[in-house]
């Protein structure tokens, strides 16, 4: 049952990912990405990572993708005539070749890596219990991983400052209200993430 569901979700995730990179309209692309994320969140859930699944939905679907949609709608990039992107013609050989080579290298790497992975599956008891108990994660986060945690906070602070600077720079010129809001929203939503994890872990 769960296995079948996993394969179905994996297939859906791949399908959505293909949608992400092949959609002509950014709107469809972003929506496909949302679909992929939801599929992945369900995969996490199946794999025994409840907290991560919730965090995935909460952060990605709840905040980041809304932000993406907001920007797409704000810029109204759906005007295909303006985009004028003809994948077959405009990509050019070098680009396709590079992409193919990269994918090939990745494929080889993946094969090499998976050769080292022990075969078999996770302990079903562990899956049922869950891998991401809140308390162990919280303890680890505030003891062993305190430095990365603080570094991440710093990163978010820098992000916030950076986004505000980006948004504020053209204020005197043609900065439109919604655009400014969007940037502010982006900055602040990024800033608020660690609080969620920090407190949720208690």
């Amino acid at each position, binding site marked *: 049952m769960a296995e079948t569901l996993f394969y179905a979700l994996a297939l859906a995730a791949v399908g959505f990912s293909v949608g992400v990179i092949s959609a002509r309209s950014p709107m469809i692309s972003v929506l496909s990405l949302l679909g992929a994320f939801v599929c992945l969140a369900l995969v996490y859930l199946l794999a025994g990572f409840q907290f991560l699944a919730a965090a995935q939905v909460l952060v990605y679907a709840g905040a980041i993708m809304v932000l993406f949609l907001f920007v797409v709608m704000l810029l109204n990039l759906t005007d295909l005539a303006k985009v004028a992107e003809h994948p077959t013609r405009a990509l050019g050989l070098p680009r396709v070749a590079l992409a193919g080579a990269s994918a090939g290298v990745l494929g080889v790497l993946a094969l090499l890596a998976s050769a080292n992975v022990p075969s078999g599956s996770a302990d079903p008891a562990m899956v049922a219990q869950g891998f991401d108990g809140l308390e162990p994660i919280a303890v680890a986060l505030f003891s062993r991983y305190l430095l990365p945690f603080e570094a991440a906070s710093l990163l978010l602070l820098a992000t916030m400052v950076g986004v505000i600077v980006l948004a504020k720079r053209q204020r005197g010129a043609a900065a439109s209200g919604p655009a400014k809001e969007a940037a502010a*929203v982006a900055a602040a939503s990024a800033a608020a993430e660690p609080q969620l994890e920090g407190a949720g872990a208690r």
Partner: protein
Amino acid sequence: MPTLPLWAVWVIKAAVIYGALLGVAALMSLAERKVSAWIQYRIGPNRVGPFGLLQPLADGVKFIFKEELIPDGANPFLFRIAPALAALPAMLAIAVIPFAGEVELFGQRTNLSVTDLPISSLYVLAVGGLGIYGIILGGWSSNSKYSLLGGLRAAAQMVSYELSLILSILAVVALSGSLDLRVIADAQQAPDVLWNVARQPLAFLLFVVCMFAETNRHPFDFAESEPELVGGFHTEYSSMRFALFFLGEYCAMTVMSCLATVLFLGGGAIPFWPEAPWWAALACFLAKMSAFLFLYLWVRWTLPRFRFDQLMNLGWKVMLPLALLNLFATAALIALEVY
């Protein structure tokens, strides 16, 4: 009572809860009109059935028979699916609301909720947050500038207030030490423990404000905002799809009211009656929930709509700092073992 297998009990539970949810949503459409009428010295719908109780039915029949229009240039798939996306998350979110404790039903001991999750509060927030996609997509796919603006506003508003909402809940979560709603509710049942509304008044206030913002209700209903945006995201909708948006809105209101009851009013706890039987607790829970639903309507006909920049200012400059402050203060008090 005959003994039924566990799965049958679960099916019955789910059916009853979802039926009740839809019933409450339908009644809310009537209550909305009734309360608005009362506040305006009017009577409200009273023609269909006794006291107009069958009005939702009549409305539903009318909606079904209305012509369905899809605007020219709209994205038909997204346009069709958006109302369902708006209604579905709220219905999913109600699954983890603990209406009452363990009860004996058809020979099985079971919790009175569709299901229990150790991270149910996060689940409610995560799934409930998805409801915004219906509004955004409905707004975007209508190919109308009013709808688009409605969708944009909904997106910005949701991102802004989701943070304060989560942070205000986190304070409660920190108090109870669990993300499980049932644990949070049970923690307030003890006779010597105050409800969270007393222990966390600021968090309660913030939660209530965010609750209005999250469900796009007055005074934060910028996504609809009839005077400016005609009908906002649902300007172009008609027939049952239009009704579905409202079903989603009422379901979301119901879920939020349940959440508020669980988080701050101790679920089904009845003061000075700790040994209340489960049906009394359930009734108490429903009463508390109804109070919150009434608050929605009451506020709608009391406060005028904000301006959008005021909304953003309130969200970022007042709500968020207050929520952070409250969280830190709570953490500090817990650390000092005051709680």
